[in-house]
């Protein structure tokens, strides 16, 4: 368990709760189906999902907390600790690797000041993150843009045909 000083649930707003209620209505047959949407909503709001988030979502959907925790630990997208404000997800899989994605990832790490060889074990841990909390860099599996390899998902935006020489300026524009 990751210890956190502040409880995310204490920062909930009425607007957040209204959005959560709206999402539950998308699943008239079984509200358990809203677990992924609520986890996304939570992580988008707070950056990660702490114990109080797991408990709040479970209570909202009449589930036990483990029903939510087992999703957080299964899906690579969800985290139990904070990542950088901007997460740079470099595609690792074959077409991108053939186009130089390992080099691209290393250059991104260097440009933001991370150790390119730092291990990331997943299972809810945050990817390597800069001390100022600005950037995280990680490899992800196929981003489904093999024809414009190498690619990276930077925040919500796909950046394609990345040339190692351009990486410093891509990062500078994110500052």
């Amino acid at each position, binding site marked *: 368990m990751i210890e956190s000083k502040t409880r995310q649930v204490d920062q909930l707003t009425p607007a957040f709760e209204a959005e959560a209620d709206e999402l539950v209505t998308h699943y008239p*047959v079984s509200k*358990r189906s809203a677990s992924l949407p609520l986890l996304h909503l939570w992580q988008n709001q707070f950056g990660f999902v702490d114990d109080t988030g797991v408990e709040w979502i479970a209570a909202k959907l009449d589930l036990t907390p483990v029903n939510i925790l*087992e999703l957080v630990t299964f899906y690579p997208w969800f985290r139990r600790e904070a990542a950088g404000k901007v997460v740079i997800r470099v595609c690792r899989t074959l077409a991108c690797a053939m186009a130089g994605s390992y080099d691209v990832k290393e250059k991104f790490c260097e440009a933001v000041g991370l150790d390119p060889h730092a291990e990331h074990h997943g299972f809810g841990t945050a990817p390597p993150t800069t001390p100022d909390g600005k950037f995280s860099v990680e490899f992800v599996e196929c981003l489904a843009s093999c024809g414009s390899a190498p690619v990276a998902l930077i925040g919500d935006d796909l950046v394609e045909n990345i040339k190692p020489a351009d990486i410093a300026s891509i990062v500078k524009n994110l500052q």
Partner: protein
Amino acid sequence: MASLLHNPPHPKERRIIFENLTKPGYAPDIETYLAHGGYESLKKAVTMKPVEIVDAVKAANLRGRGGAGFPCGTKWSFIKYDDGKPHYIVVNGDESEPGTFKDRYILHEDPHQLIEGLAISAFATNTHLAYIYIRCEFPHAARIVWNAIKEAKARGFIGKNLLGTGFDLEIYVHQGAGAYICGEETSLLESLEGKRPYPRIKPPYFPAVLGLYMKPTIVNNVETLCHVKHIIRLGAAEYARMGTPGDGGTRTFGVSGDVVRPGVYELPCGAVTLRELIFDICGGLKPGRTLKAVIPGGSSAKVMRAEDVYKIKVKGPDGAMIDKEIPMLDVVMDASTLQAVGTMVGSAGVMIMDDSRDMVWALNNLNQFYAHESCGQCTPCREGSLWMSKMTTRMLDGGGRAEDSKNLLSIADNIAGRTICAFGEACSWPTQSFLAKFPEEFAKTAAK
């Protein structure tokens, strides 16, 4: 998004799915869609009997475009229109198979095409609730599709009493969370139910029997449903005529890797050979390079080697089956030919590798993918995919052993056929086929 749809289209291309979205100024909003004949197929479909729609899709010989290639009309006909149960349609927009990048264009640039195809299929199968499952790595696509749903609802194309027919259809977007396994249809359903997305034990083999919430459900790929719109528009016979007898219509190929013009190309099924695809349509290989290998249908499809000559049986002039030898480059890129030569058209994600590529390195990349993405439910796959990945990594790191090839094959052979879902085959086929086609490279790396 960089456009990988090259204009003007190659003469061999026939754009149906990509016809509009490659036009200058085409936008994903409903006004643009309506100005390009949008929702006319739906208007026509609601004047037909539901069974006529299903029969048209059957007669069109439409095969699923997600990877398994199951005949779409047959899948629909498993749903009994009046069985008194709720039915569901789930659109598989979890596009995650390495080498595949076609659905992203439809979702981002022509979402109403999908919604129209989905509405037609819902009308044909008496379905009133549908979900479009989109991988969360497409955040813009999710927003664009949501917006399109709202637009279509405001115009009465979906929602309550669509087009005044008394038929109701609600559609929602559901986002995944970064797991490849959710592309497996029963895993996708578990994911949508809010559970850990472990694929379901078969039988029943089809979600049409027990699907979402244990009710009859159709799971179709994004592109597949878009084709439905065009089957209604063109008529089944004309649609089917574009393809081959067992593989109707067009298919969108995503070509990546070592070619001059990687991209998405919409081609009539069976219209081109691998040679035409690589050398005419994609501009050939990079200067000075020769072809080494092709993975024809997404990373799970078995690899083909440039020197391969396949022996297949074809119908001779007198109607009797005769043996024919086909060099690798003359293989026709349709479902039945690729199956006959021991691989598959799959998701039509074609990855080209030239002579600069190390096949142990390429397999290791795929092995790492499968080791990462195995859901862990079945022991052979959970352990085996990781073992294969560790072995190829060790070989590349200079720790090769004489018995590596034998052991890799043994692991792969003990995964395939021994797991709940087809991921077992998907993660074994690369290892089995890379070893079968390039044994000397593995022996050489093992000896280092």
